[in-house]
C-alpha cells in the first residue's frame, strides 16, 4: 500500500554498495560511521539553532512582538550570531568547584540527547539505529541527561544550582514513569517496541485515531509528562529564573552554557519526534482506512515532510504551553504526577490491554 512512498534505504543502500566496492568491508563500515556522525553533528547544530530561532519567533508573535529581525532576513542569522558570541565568551572557572565534573556535566547532557537522536526515524528508510527495542532505548538514553544536570548542580559548589539540580532530579525521576506508561500504551496496541514496527502498524491510520479515547488520553499524558521531562515551562523548575536565577546552569558561561541550552532544545525535538512517531504515525502519511484514492494522494507528499510537519506541530504545542502557563511549585509538580498522571496512565494502560484483548481497536 505504501509503495508510492520514496524509500531512503535505496539511497543509503547504494552509498553502502559504492563504499564496499571501493574499500574493504571493515573500512567501509568505519567510513559510514564517520559520515553518519558528521551528518548528525551538522544536523544537530543546525536543528538546535533553528529551534532557538523558532522559539523566539513563536513567543514573540504570541506576545505581540516582532522577535529577532535584525541579523539576516527575518533575523534568521540571529541565533548564529548568538552562537558566535557564546563561543567567544570567557569560560569562567569557579573556585572550589569540582572541576572535572563541572566540565563533564554539559557533555553528559549533550551526549544523552545525541544518542537519543540516533534512534529517530526521519523518513522511510532514513533511520540510523532501528532497534527492536527502539522505544525503550530512547527512553533509557534520554533520561541519562538528568545525570548531567545533577552533576552540574552539584559540582558548581553553589547554592542556587544545587536546589535546581535537586528539583530536576525529583522531577525527571517522577515524570519518567508517565512518559514510559503512555508510550507503553501504544506498544500494547502495536505489539512491538521497534519504532519502525510502530510506524508500519499505522499504515491504515494513526494510533491517536485508531486507539479510540485511551490513545488520546495517552497522547495528552505523554505531552504533559514529556514537557516536564525536558524541563520546559510550565515545568521549568530546575531553571526557574524568578526563583533560582538560572537554576542548575547558574555558574556556567560561554559554550558550556550553550551546551545546556542546545541540549534542552534538542531534547524538545526528540520528545516531539517520539510523540509524532508513536502517536501520529511518524513519516507515515495520513491514511484513512480503505479510501484508496485519498491515501494515494497523501502518499505523494514525501515522508520526510510528514515527519517534520508532525514533529514541529508537537514542538509548537510544547512552546504554546510554555508561553501561556505560570510555573508550578515543586510539591504541586509532584502532586500532578503521582496523584493525577500516574493513576490515569496506569488505568489507561489496563483499558488498552483490555481493548486489545477484545480486538476492539481498528
Amino acid at each position, binding site marked *: 500500500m505504501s509503495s508510492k512512498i520514496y524509500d531512503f534505504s535505496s539511497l543509503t543502500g547504494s552509498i553502502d554498495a559504492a563504499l564496499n566496492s571501493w574499500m574493504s568491508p571493515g573500512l567501509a563500515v568505519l567510513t559510514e560511521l564517520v559520515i553518519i556522525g558528521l551528518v548528525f553533528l551538522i544536523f544537530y547544530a543546525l536543528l538546535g539553532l533553528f529551534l532557538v530561532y523558532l522559539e523566539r519567533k*513563536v513567543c514573540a*508573535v*504570541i*506576545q*505581540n*512582538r*516582532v522577535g529577532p*529581525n535584525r541579523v539576516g532576513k527575518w533575523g534568521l542569522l540571529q541565533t548564529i550570531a548568538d552562537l558566535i558570541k557564546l563561543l567567544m565568551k570567557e569560560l569562567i572557572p569557579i573556585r572550589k568547584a569540582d572541576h572535572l565534573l563541572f566540565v563533564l556535566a554539559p557533555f553528559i547532557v549533550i551526549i544523552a540527547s545525541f544518542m537519543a537522536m540516533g534512534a529517530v526515524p526521519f523518513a522511510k528508510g532514513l533511520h540510523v539505529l532501528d532497534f527492536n527495542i527502539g522505544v525503550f532505548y530512547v527512553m533509557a538514553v534520554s533520561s541519562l541527561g538528568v545525570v548531567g544536570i545533577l552533576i552540574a548542580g552539584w559540582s558548581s559548589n553553589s547554592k542556587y544550582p544545587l536546589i535546581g539540580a535537586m528539583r530536576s532530579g525529583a522531577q525527571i525521576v517522577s515524570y519518567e514513569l508517565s512518559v514510559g506508561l503512555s508510550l507503553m500504551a501504544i506498544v500494547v496496541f502495536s505489539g512491538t517496541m521497534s519504532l519502525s514496527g510502530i510506524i508500519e502498524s499505522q499504515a491504515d491510520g494513526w494510533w491517536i485515531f485508531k486507539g479510540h479515547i485511551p490513545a488520546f488520553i495517552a497522547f495528552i499524558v505523554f505531552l504533559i509528562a514529556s514537557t516536564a521531562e525536558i524541563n520546559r515551562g510550565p515545568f521549568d523548575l530546575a531553571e526557574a529564573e524568578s526563583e533560582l536565577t538560572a537554576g542548575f546552569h547558574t555558574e556556567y558561561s560561554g559554550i558550556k552554557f550553550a551546551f545546556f541550552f542546545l541540549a534542552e532544545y534538542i531534547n524538545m525535538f526528540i520528545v516531539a519526534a517520539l510523540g509524532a512517531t508513536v502517536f501520529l504515525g511518524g513519516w507515515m502519511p495520513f491514511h484513512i482506512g480503505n479510501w484508496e484514492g485519498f491515501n494515494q494522494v497523501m502518499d505523494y507528499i514525501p515522508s520526510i515532510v510528514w515527519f517534520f510537519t508532525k514533529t514541529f506541530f508537537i514542538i509548537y504545542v510544547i512552546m*504554546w*504551553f510554555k*508561553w*501561556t*502557563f505560570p510555573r508550578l511549585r515543586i510539591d504541586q509538580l509532584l502532586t500532578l504526577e503521582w496523584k*493525577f498522571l500516574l493513576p490515569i496512565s496506569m488505568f489507561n494502560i489496563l483499558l488498552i490491554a483490555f481493548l486489545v484483548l477484545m480486538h476492539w481497536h481498528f
Partner: protein
Amino acid sequence: MNSISKYFSDLFKGISSLWAGMRVTGKYFVSPGQIVTQQYPENRATLKMEPRFKGEIIMPHDENNQHACTGCGICEINCPNGSIEIITDRVPNADGKLERVIDKHIFHLSMCTFCGLCVKTCPSDALAFGQEFEHAVFDRHKLTKVLNQPGSSLKKEAKK
C-alpha cells in the same frame, strides 16, 4: 463516590481553565496583525514626538538669530540640580549705559531631570523643550550644551 466525582470535576475544571488561557495566547498567535512593536530606527522618518515632549531644553532663535533670554538667572536659581549655568556680560548699549547680556547659557543635559521649572519660570519665555530624544553620546562632555547660538543677540521686543 463523592470524592471520585470531585476528583474528576477538579480535573475537568483545571483542564478547561488551562484551555481558556491557551485560547488567549493562541488567538494572538494566529493574528500577527496585533503586533505593537515599533521598528524604531527604521521609523525615524515617521516617528513624531508629541509637541509637549520633554526631550531637552532649547532656546528658540528666530530668523535674525535672536533669542529672548535677558540673562536674569531665574532658571538657574530654580533648577533643582544645578544643570543650568549662565555667564553674563555687561556691554554698553546705544545710550552708553552698561547692559546685561548673556555670554553663554550653559545647559548640562547629564544632570537634568526634566522637571520643567526653568521653562515654566522663565519670565521672557526664552526657554522651551525640544523634541530631540537621541541623546546617547560617547563623551559626556558633549552633554553640556551652550543654548544661545554664537553671534545671537537679544530680541528687542522681548524686553517690554
